[in-house]
């Protein structure tokens, strides 16, 4: 039996430490890990918890991220609670196995500390890796700070392991901005946290010799389509369970999360839509914009997959202009978020069809300043007053050289 850690009511943790403690409290059976910046401290801290007797499970050291996720798939199929952490290139190497995990419906929890993708090599944060994994059939949850990294890790186990869901789940946090920034975190006691997550319920465990199962068998054109459709359906319906878990967590802690988080959006005319730590900066900028007479708001989502189309469309449909912020290379298209938000608004009933613009920012952790956000709100206001776009749809913020914009 593992020893408990006595936690203070308020701990000063960075996002990585917060995630490590949440993983420890979940009493995971197997963590297979290959460290990579900026997620390294998650498994490093966890390793010290294991060696100091605070965890009963196994800690498997492997030779690559591909092997780490493979070991996780094996351990999860065998019937254990499993988690790991990674970033950037390591996540890219894992991607091949991510599809195995979701296809086999293994409720693995992965901490993805978002970081840029090479080349050029860059260890700092942007959302490129999150977008790389978006079609892998995992639930993707988004967090803004260490407290949320902690809370969402606890909830991720509940969501992934729910018998209606059984889908592996990624908890995203911003590299360095969240992962290495120490803040006040209010943890649950070990006992309360474990009780919230609950004992692991295995399903079709490989180690059940009375009911042997073949995992990941071949299915060509005769059945492959049906299996993928089943996964998609479960993902699309998982938001119901995500909301249920959000509700139970709120009852336990008083911290209420929603699929759509809005700030001052009720009477807003213009809004910024973003993911991760940018949301907090945008809230400050919106508050300042209101002082200048701009009816500004901010919106974000908690689950990037499943994407809450209807809820988001309803939350944003009455706005006049929206800036959609993409912290990844658009790579020959509009930003990924821009496309998703646009679809939400186009499909929702009685949408007033807000004017949409796409801002590409923060690649490789280029700063997004309050002045940048102030300018974005200014441009949104001009769009709202003119009733049309007064600038190109897609613009790059903070890029050196001649202004880069498209469409």
């Amino acid at each position: 039996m593992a020893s408990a850690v006595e936690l203070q009511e308020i701990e000063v943790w960075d996002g990585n430490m917060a995630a490590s403690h949440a993983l420890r409290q979940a009493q995971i059976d197997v963590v297979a890990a290959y460290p990579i910046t900026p997620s390294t401290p998650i498994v490093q801290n966890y390793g010290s918890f294991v060696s100091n007797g605070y965890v009963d499970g196994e800690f498997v050291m492997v030779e690559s991220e591909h092997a780490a996720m493979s070991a996780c798939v094996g351990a999860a199929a065998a019937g254990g609670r499993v988690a790991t952490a990674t970033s950037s290139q390591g996540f890219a190497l894992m991607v091949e196995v991510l599809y195995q995990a979701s296809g086999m419906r293994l409720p693995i929890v992965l901490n993805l500390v978002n970081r840029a993708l090479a080349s050029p090599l860059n260890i700092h944060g942007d959302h490129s890796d999150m977008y790389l994994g978006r079609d892998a059939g995992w639930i993707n949850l988004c967090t803004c700070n260490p407290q949320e990294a902690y809370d969402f890790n606890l909830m991720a186990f509940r969501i992934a392991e729910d018998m209606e869901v059984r889908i592996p789940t990624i908890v995203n946090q911003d590299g360095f901005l969240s992962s290495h920034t120490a803040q006040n975190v209010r943890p649950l006691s070990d006992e309360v946290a474990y009780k919230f997550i609950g004992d692991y319920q295995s399903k079709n465990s490989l180690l059940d010799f009375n009911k042997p199962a073949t995992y990941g068998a071949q299915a060509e054109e005769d059945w492959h389509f049906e299996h993928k459709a089943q996964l998609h359906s479960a993902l699309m319906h998982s938001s119901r369970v995500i909301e249920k878990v959000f509700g139970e967590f709120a009852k336990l802690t008083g911290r209420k999360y929603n699929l759509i988080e809005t700030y001052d959006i009720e009477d807003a005319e213009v809004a910024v839509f973003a993911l991760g730590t940018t949301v907090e900066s945008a809230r400050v900028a919106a508050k300042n914009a209101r002082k200048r007479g701009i009816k500004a708001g901010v919106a974000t989502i908690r689950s990037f997959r499943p994407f809450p189309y209807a809820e988001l469309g309803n939350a944003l449909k009455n706005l006049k202009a929206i800036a959609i912020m993409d912290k990844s290379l658009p790579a020959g298209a509009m930003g990924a978020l821009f496309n998703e938000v646009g679809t939400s608004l186009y499909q929702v009933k009685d949408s007033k069809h807000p004017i949409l613009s796409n801002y590409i920012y923060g690649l490789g952790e280029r700063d997004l300043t309050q002045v940048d956000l102030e300018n974005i709100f200014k441009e949104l206001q001009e769009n709202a007053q003119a009733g049309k776009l007064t600038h190109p749809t897609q613009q790059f913020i903070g890029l050196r050289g001649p202004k880069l914009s498209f469409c």
Partner: protein
Amino acid sequence: MKGWNDFEIGAILFPFANNGEEALESHNNERDYTPESSFKASVAHWRVEKPVHNSEICINCFNCWVYCPDAAILARDEKLRGVDYVHCKGCGICVDVCPTNPKSLLMFSDHEDNQNALKNWPQKEEKKKN
């Protein structure tokens, strides 16, 4: 025919209809396999040519049985008893490793009748003189 929402999640197949530990104790001919198991379901769709076994030439060396990547060579009572066409992919490895002269396993078109194939078996090849 089942729909996408009818089957077990996770693309999982259950080989045995009853208790698995009991099934393992009996010979695989007598086990109660499920229709979805890869034992009963044909996994040989892409075979173009099939190996035909000629028991009159066969010396029961079991080379083919050892090398078959799909365990599709049937061996019973210490004798080779032909090929399991539900699992054979037609790779031809068994023919390649067969040491007899002429070979006791040969590839024929998948459409060829086995009796016909046996009638058209080639004669012993003379060793080439140096």
